[in-house]
């Protein structure tokens, strides 16, 4: 299980290859990449910056991945989250989950993303033509995380 917080970009193919290297029981990798969009809530976004809570960030991501491993029969998982200034089109986050079969890998990957969105201490600030603004939390993210409680 690997969790990284970094300013630089990541190479998805190399990360997935490293995650499965030497594990010939791995049959499935479900992954997710989040990207900076040039529009949010009706305003143009020229740049974004991501603030986080060093220390808690890593702990919370590890706890989320640990919870996923407790729920599903998965072999390994990786979370990389970028911080600092980003531009439209840039990657923000990578979540990749390895399992023997696809069903559990997909579920765990989506679960990790939903929990990351509501529990990991990151905050986005956008530069728009009207100035800078902190992004508001989305109710739909709370709902997405809620549904795993059953």
């Amino acid at each position: 299980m690997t969790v990284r917080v970094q300013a630089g970009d990541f190479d998805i193919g190399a990360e997935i290859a490293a995650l499965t290297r030497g594990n010939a029981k791995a049959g499935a990798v479900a992954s997710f990449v989040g990207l900076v969009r040039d529009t949010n809530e009706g305003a143009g976004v020229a740049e974004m910056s991501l603030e986080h809570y060093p220390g808690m960030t890593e702990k919370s991501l590890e706890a989320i991945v640990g919870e996923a491993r407790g729920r599903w029969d998965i072999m390994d998982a990786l979370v990389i989250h970028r911080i600092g200034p980003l531009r439209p089109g840039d990657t923000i986050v990578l979540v990749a989950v390895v399992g023997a079969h696809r069903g559990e890998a997909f579920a765990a990957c989506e679960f990790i993303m939903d929990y990351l969105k509501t529990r990991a201490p990151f905050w986005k600030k956008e530069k728009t033509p009207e100035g800078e603004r902190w992004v508001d939390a989305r109710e739909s993210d709370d709902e997405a995380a809620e549904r795993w409680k059953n």
Partner: protein
Amino acid sequence: MSVRILYFASLREALGQASENIALPAQVANVGQLQAHLAARGETWEALSKTKNLRVAVNQQMAAMDAPLKDGDEVAFFPPVTGG
């Protein structure tokens, strides 16, 4: 007892401060009491009682308003998270 307090994102900007160390009076024993104590300092500090859905972490774990505090704790206040 003394605690270390951290502020993040919009709350950090509203308060003009990222952290502080503070000695607590005896009647401040949990997170909610700490929040009220800090907000009672007036002016910009009222942001602590006005931030919608304020979140708190104690020692880097999400905590509820009734979570107890002990000497040396790291308490962080911040708005709902928006990463990912």
